[in-house]
């Protein structure tokens, strides 16, 4: 679990270095839950940039949607060549390894953005630029 959370902490830096993804998300403003199912992170996105990412507050957290997955799912998703069925966010929900909940509108309007954002750690493993 620690590894998954630590890898999530790299997302803002990886995103800032990806101009195509920043352009795709330029109209996106949302607070959402991302990360491991048991220990999700509250992520604030403004104009496509991650402006804040912190542990879910114990009192009165507010967010529009959540995409959370088992630690194994994240590790598999981040492999340079993920295995069949572990290679896509919606493949993970179909196999029951991930949960997609809440008001899905911002997620669906920016579906490719979220797929690509959450795949950015693949570059850490492969050594290739994201």
């Amino acid at each position, binding site marked *: 679990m620690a590894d998954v959370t630590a890898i999530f902490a790299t997302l803002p830096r990886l995103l800032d270095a990806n101009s195509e993804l920043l352009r795709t998300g330029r109209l996106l403003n949302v607070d959402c839950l991302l990360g491991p199912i048991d220990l999700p992170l509250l992520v604030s996105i403004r104009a496509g940039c991650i402006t804040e990412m912190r542990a879910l507050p114990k009192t009165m957290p507010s967010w529009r949607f959540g995409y959370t997955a088992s630690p194994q799912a994240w590790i598999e998703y981040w492999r340079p060549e*993920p295995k069949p069925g572990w*290679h896509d966010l919606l493949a993970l929900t*179909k*196999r029951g390894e991930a949960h997609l909940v809440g008001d*899905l*509108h911002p997620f*669906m309007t920016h579906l*490719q953005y979220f797929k690509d954002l959450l795949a950015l750690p693949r570059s850490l493993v492969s050594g290739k630029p994201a």
Partner: protein
Amino acid sequence: MSGKIEPIVGRYVHVEIDGVMHRIYFEENGSGIPLVCLHTAGSDNRQWRHLLCDEEFSRHFRIIAFDMPWHGKSNPPDGATDEYRLTTASYTGAIRAFCAALSLDRPVVMGCSIGGRIVLNLAIDHISEFRALIGLEAADFQQPWYDTEWLNRPDVHGGEICAALVSGLIAPQSPENTRRETLWGYKQSGPGVFKGDLYFYRVDGDLRGRVEKIDTTICPLYLLTGEYDFSCTPEDTLRTARSIPGAQVTIMEKLGHFPMSENPVQFRQYIAPVLQQIRQIG
């Protein structure tokens, strides 16, 4: 002329489908056994451009790929106002009418995704009309994995959502340029067309309990599915094939839901022996 000109030729044929005239766009190349190729839901015949240009295949096959009505350059018919909705009957009718309009003699039909599903229906109801049938990413049924209501609503960009949904069906090993080209087709589909196609796929075209009557001694049936296709999974295809004596199944490595367009080189090594077998059958 110094520019490279591809051998593909595009034309229109006027076809009556279920009492309505349609102006159907098709592309073709080659000569020999007619091979009709069916594109996936919400896309068009450009998915087949690599196969159409294949020098070896086109020496032995007249390869033809048409845009389904409402797709690509086949416009909606004159006066069409209703929401587009594909059914088993209308899809089957369109394919048979197109083949008849071109006077094709017992063509081979190869379809992908919805095209793979309808190939099974051709095998169930019209098998004697065909020389061989090839279903890519084909099964009698598969479990839905998203709500199709997202595909056509005014507050969501239809092209972006259609492409983003299917992007995960492409194998991660597929080249970036052919991956992007495959998704470009989805970004260009008309509003509601992908959703209308999925009415056939999700609602009307459940073939469970019907595929058992397919007689592969009349016409061979080949089923090929990519290992990364989590919409029509290899397990879906294998389950379907178990109900059809004589069906020949191949699970394709490092390929997803769009083998002919997402990675034409990888796909070629799987389809070449199938086409070779069909040639030998004659």
